[in-house]
């Protein structure tokens, strides 16, 4: 509590000072109210009714109003209010429906003054007239509001809301005769105290109960209401129709609202359930609270500003049995924690970036965007039309960075998505098909992945034997070359490295060998290439690929480099990282290039010389042993992870779907779900609805699968009365007509309904199709020339 500030404010003579502090109550509080001089506070609840004085450092219990041996239900308070004119006068609303007034001036211990037992149900709210000493208003669960004159024994008038329970009543601060009442059914009524027969105005403010309302302290026409629908609304009552001028959406149902003194647009709220914090909102800025008090550990039940003219002290009582004084200086301000920059990527690679103007302008001065030589960048700036908030000068700049059409093109994605086959055929065929698709789009690496998958997973199947021979034949045709090359030029280091791996029983041996050989080939042909983009694990597919493929793969590399374009660094450095080559490859290359090291390692581990045969024999043994496809699961898993990491979630998901059970167990559910959602999101952004649906349907994730079951409702309006049809799509509840009749057979259409957009006649899809084959006029006889395409 060291950080807590001490605040002193001068208020025309009397000063308020204090710090954030709290005291424990014996029981949960239901409501609190403050004395006019801001020095005392009363706390009321089911089992508590006490007055505390607010000292500099602490709350001091002044008076316990719960007296008597057997506390009756009259003490069980739902609400309490302290008269703002008379320091000795308090009123409480009891849960059993009794309204009690208390006179602190009484000499006896029992300060109870009057008892009004007129309400039949719990009284939710009591309210004193702001200027009239003897006038008290109550609102009860039984739907009645009663006005009491404290000089009389009974109520002077009763107001019937004619609707459900009254949740809150508040006298208007400026209008002598007016009070507002809020109801459980969402209505707010305005009454003239002199006319108990009928309300002056009524309007529906919320969906569900309106728990609270508060008149603005200065602006006489403003009324704030808070409801169970998690909204705080500010109504302008000056016009003939109450007009909603502000609306704040909170995260839980709103239990209390209180305008902040001296701040025209600020309002404090607390919630009924779940959320324990107190928020102070600027109603013009409804998305983020301007201050937040997070001290309470259970729901806050009562909030009150300590003084009518002091905006810095807030008192609150809570179900966690504490009474707090909050100081504005100690409030946490969520705005400070909010991220003031926004960044969004468009579908086609454009990038929008919004930030505080100051930030952007200083940066752009320092570094004009000319750094990138290949791609023009457009920089647009838009200022916010008006300065909206008084104390935060918030003008922000929006920059849009466009990439040129060609390099950012995502055509390949769309084509791939459209052409991939994901199910319905044997695995081998699917793989072949997809490999062909990938190849057709110059994505050789992906193509090879597919081929590889085919080999791994369908080698045991019947289809595969031919394929296998084929690939082996090819492999053996292509490989001896490499083999000899290896033997000739590679120093023993490489051989022994492979030996080392083999002796460890590692599965990677073959791959590493293959990889290094291919790298070497590449190096020979093209000295300048940094290395192939292909990570080690995937090269198994090379068995089938001929040398051209290898070169093509090589070409891909500079291409990838071309794709990368640099944006101003401070804006978005991300893109660079994505395109970076995987480090694993470099590592491998290192090994190949520095034979000595590995050679030494080999010597230390295994001294038995093994003939440095290589690829061909290994690959033979590989096939002959018919390793179970499980054996490759880790590799395939890594492949998928690799693709996903690269941003090619399409490949990852497609493989996942095609392989189905074979690989599903290997990858944890959450990752899968993440991939699926990303892919589906992408598909939907490209408006590939059918494909995204197919993906959803084929996915094995529970969370994804049920996406298709969500919001499957289609809302239709009746064609006669134009009102929404609530339950059935073909019969209107209101006008009792079958809305969608088939113009051909005159029966109700319950399934697919097709209609002409010109004359809006239609019917069964089949019937209309058949009709329009022979006739070009509308079957309804309206004379319209309908078209069916």
């Amino acid at each position: 509590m060291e950080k807590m500030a001490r605040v002193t404010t001068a208020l025309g003579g009397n000063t308020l000072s204090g710090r954030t502090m709290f005291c424990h109550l014996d029981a949960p509080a239901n409501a609190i109210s403050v004395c006019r001089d801001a020095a005392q506070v009363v706390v009321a609840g089911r089992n508590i009714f006490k007055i505390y004085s607010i000292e500099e450092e602490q709350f001091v219990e002044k008076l316990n109003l719960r007296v008597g041996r057997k506390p009756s239900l009259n003490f069980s308070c739902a609400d309490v209010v302290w008269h703002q004119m008379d320091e000795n006068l308090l009123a409480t609303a009891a849960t059993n429906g009794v309204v009690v007034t208390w006179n602190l001036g009484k000499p006896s211990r029992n300060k109870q003054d009057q008892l009004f037992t007129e309400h039949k149900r719990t009284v939710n709210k009591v309210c004193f007239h702001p200027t009239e000493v003897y006038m008290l208003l109550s609102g009860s669960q039984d739907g009645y509001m009663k006005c009491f004159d404290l000089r009389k024994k009974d109520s002077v008038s009763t107001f019937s809301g004619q609707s459900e329970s009254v949740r809150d009543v508040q006298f208007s601060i400026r209008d002598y005769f007016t009070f507002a009442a809020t109801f459980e059914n969402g209505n707010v009524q305005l009454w003239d105290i002199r006319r108990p027969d009928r309300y002056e105005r009524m309007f529906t403010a919320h969906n569900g109960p309106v728990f609270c309302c508060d008149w603005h302290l200065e602006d006489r026409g403003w009324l704030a209401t808070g409801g169970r629908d998690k909204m705080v609304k500010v109504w302008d009552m000056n016009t003939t129709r109450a007009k909603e001028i502000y609306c704040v959406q909170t995260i839980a149902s709103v239990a209390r609202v209180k305008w902040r003194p001296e701040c025209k647009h600020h309002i404090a709220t607390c919630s009924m359930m779940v959320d324990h914090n107190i928020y102070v909102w600027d109603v013009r800025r409804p998305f983020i609270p301007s201050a937040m008090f997070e001290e309470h550990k259970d729901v806050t039940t009562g909030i009150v500003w300590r003084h009518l003219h002091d905006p810095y002290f807030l008192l609150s009582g809570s179900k966690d049995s504490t009474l707090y004084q909050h100081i504005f200086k100690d409030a946490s301000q969520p705005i400070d924690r909010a991220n003031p920059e926004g960044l969004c990527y468009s579908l086609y690679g454009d990038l929008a970036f919004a930030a505080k103007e100051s930030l952007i302008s200083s940066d752009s001065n320092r570094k004009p965007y000319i750094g990138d030589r290949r791609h023009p960048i457009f920089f647009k700036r838009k200022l916010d039309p008006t300065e909206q908030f008084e104390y935060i000068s918030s003008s922000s700049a929006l920059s849009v960075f466009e990439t040129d059409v060609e390099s950012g093109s995502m055509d390949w994605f769309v084509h791939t998505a459209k052409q991939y086959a994901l199910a319905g055929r044997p695995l081998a065929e699917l793989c072949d098909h997809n490999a062909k698709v990938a190849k057709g789009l110059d994505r050789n690496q992906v193509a090879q992945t597919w081929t590889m998958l085919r080999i791994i997973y369908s080698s045991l199947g019947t289809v595969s034997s031919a394929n296998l021979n084929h690939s082996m034949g090819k492999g053996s045709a292509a490989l001896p070359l490499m083999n000899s090359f290896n033997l000739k030029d590679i120093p023993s280091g490489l051989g022994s490295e492979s030996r080392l791996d083999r002796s460890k029983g590692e599965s990677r041996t073959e791959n590493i060998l293959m990889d290094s050989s291919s790298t070497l080939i590449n190096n020979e042909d093209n000295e300048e290439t940094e290395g192939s983009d292909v990570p080690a694990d995937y090269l198994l597919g090379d068995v089938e690929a001929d040398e051209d493929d290898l070169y093509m793969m090589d070409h891909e590399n500079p291409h990838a480099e071309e794709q990368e374009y640099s944006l101003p660094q401070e804006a978005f450095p991300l893109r660079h990282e994505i395109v970076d080559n995987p480090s694993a490859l470099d590592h491998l290359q290192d090994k190949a290039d520095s034979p000595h090291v590995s050679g030494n390692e080999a010597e230390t581990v295994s001294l038995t010389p093994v003939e440095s045969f290589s690829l061909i024999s290994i690959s033979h043994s590989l096939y002959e042993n018919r390793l179970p496809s499980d054996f490759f699961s880790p590799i395939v898993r890594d492949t998928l992870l690799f693709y996903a990491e690269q941003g090619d979630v399409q490949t990852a998901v497609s493989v996942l779907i095609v392989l189905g059970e074979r690989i599903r167990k290997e990858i944890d559910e959450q990752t899968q779900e993440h991939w699926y959602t990303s892919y589906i999101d992408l598909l939907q952004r490209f408006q590939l609805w059918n494909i995204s649906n197919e993906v959803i349907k084929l996915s094995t994730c529970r969370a994804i699968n049920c996406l298709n079951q969500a919001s499957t409702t289609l809302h239709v309006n009746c064609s006669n009365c134009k009102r929404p049809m609530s339950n059935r799509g073909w019969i209107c509840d209101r006008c009792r007509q079958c809305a969608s009749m088939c113009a051909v057979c005159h029966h109700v259409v319950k399934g697919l309904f097709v209609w002409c957009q010109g004359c809006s006649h239609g019917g069964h899809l089949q019937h209309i199709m058949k009709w329009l084959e022979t006739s070009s006029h509308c079957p309804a006889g309206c004379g319209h020339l309908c078209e069916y395409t």
Partner: protein
Amino acid sequence: MNRLGSGPVGSAAAAAAGQYRVCGNCRKVPRQEKRVQVSPPLTRGPSAFIPENEVMQANGLDERTNLLVEEYSTSGRLDNITQVMSIHTQYLESFLRSQFYMLRMDGPLPLPYRHYIAIMAAARHQCSYLINMHVDEFLKTGGIAEWLNGLEYIPQRLKNLNEINKLLAHRPWLITKEHIQKLVKTGENNWSLPELVHAVVLLAHYHALASFVFGSGINPERDPDTSNGVRLIAVNNFCVCDLANDNNIENASLTSSNFGNVMVFLQIADSLSELEALMERMKRLQEDKEDEEASQEEMATRFEKEKKESLLVISGAFDDDIVSTDVSRYIEDPGFGYKDFARRGEDHLPTFRAQDYTWENHGFSLVNRLYSDIGHLLDEKFRMVYNLTYNTMATHEDVDTTMLRRALFNYVHCMYGIRYDDYDYGEVNQLLERSLKVYIKTVTCYPERTTKRMYDSYWRQFKHSEKVHVNLLLMEARMQAELLYALRAITRHLT
């Protein structure tokens, strides 16, 4: 059309399908079986208690027919519950809407789970009617048939729900946040809060619905279509005698304690004056409201008294409860039943203060937060049932029945230990006669023991539709009570 199971067609088909079981109940108590045969209650129509023509009575025909047509077109059938409830069209609409939502619309739980939970809930009260219905639905929505063999065959996750099901059904006040924590934090079998809330809503709904089924003597479904094999078999899994409307007609302890019966005999003579007296009392209560200044202690003791007295209504345990195996495989600890909230001599549990955790303020917000929209539907349903009135009482018209409705509602809550500060429980005593209390207590706490005699013995002047209305009130009050306890526990878990 044959009544299922009793007709040769039904049993033959069942036997042919190899699904027929010898009912443990019949074997054990053959006399009961005979009794059913000798004096079958009204086997025609949707209810055993209510004559068919009463149910089918035409009032507000258009609206009602529309609603029924609608229901038929959505669900493809018109079950007996719907038919009986259709006496109160307005209510039926919101009932169906909420039931439809929790069973078939978007929600955290998969469809088969929902039906299985319904089965588990109904099984707590041995309500074979509901079980049949949902076994059927469970299979239709792709549930695993193996689960129907009993609780040992279901996933641990569902099994974990047993405890809360048991408590909720019989002694909801025992539910604590520890129970919630146990469900929510158990590693891989855990329930997410939305799922749990969905499950709790389903459980409460089906416990309460079981009350309605027994309370209104809902008959087993007549076979809508003999060609529909699945349905036939599913229904035939249960023997007629399971249809508990009749099964406990001569209940040992009822005859011994005999409250109900004695009252019945005494009151037959002056049933007419009984109604008059009730009206008189209501009038007096309304007028005397101001005069009678009961002290606060007095009020408190009245609640306690009512609580205690609810003990006397039926005391003693029905230890000889027979639970057929068909039902018992869905429940654990079948002996666990309602135990009076206020047992004398035991430390009594803290009373649930209705004002501290109300449905409108707290329950709704929580439910709606975790399982969106159900809050609105339930809210509407509760409101509907609470405010439903035709301003009639038996033959009298233009009567304000608010008092009576409130007494019924609060009496149910009272038995579950929920107290309203603003209610004078003396009213309950004045308005609800003993036989009615017997009925209320049976229907809400152990619905499976309801008999036609109980149903007939109270309010003999009243129309059947009014008695159905009573049942609706009891059912919703019970559901709300269960929900309040469960949601309060969840709230405590959250804070």
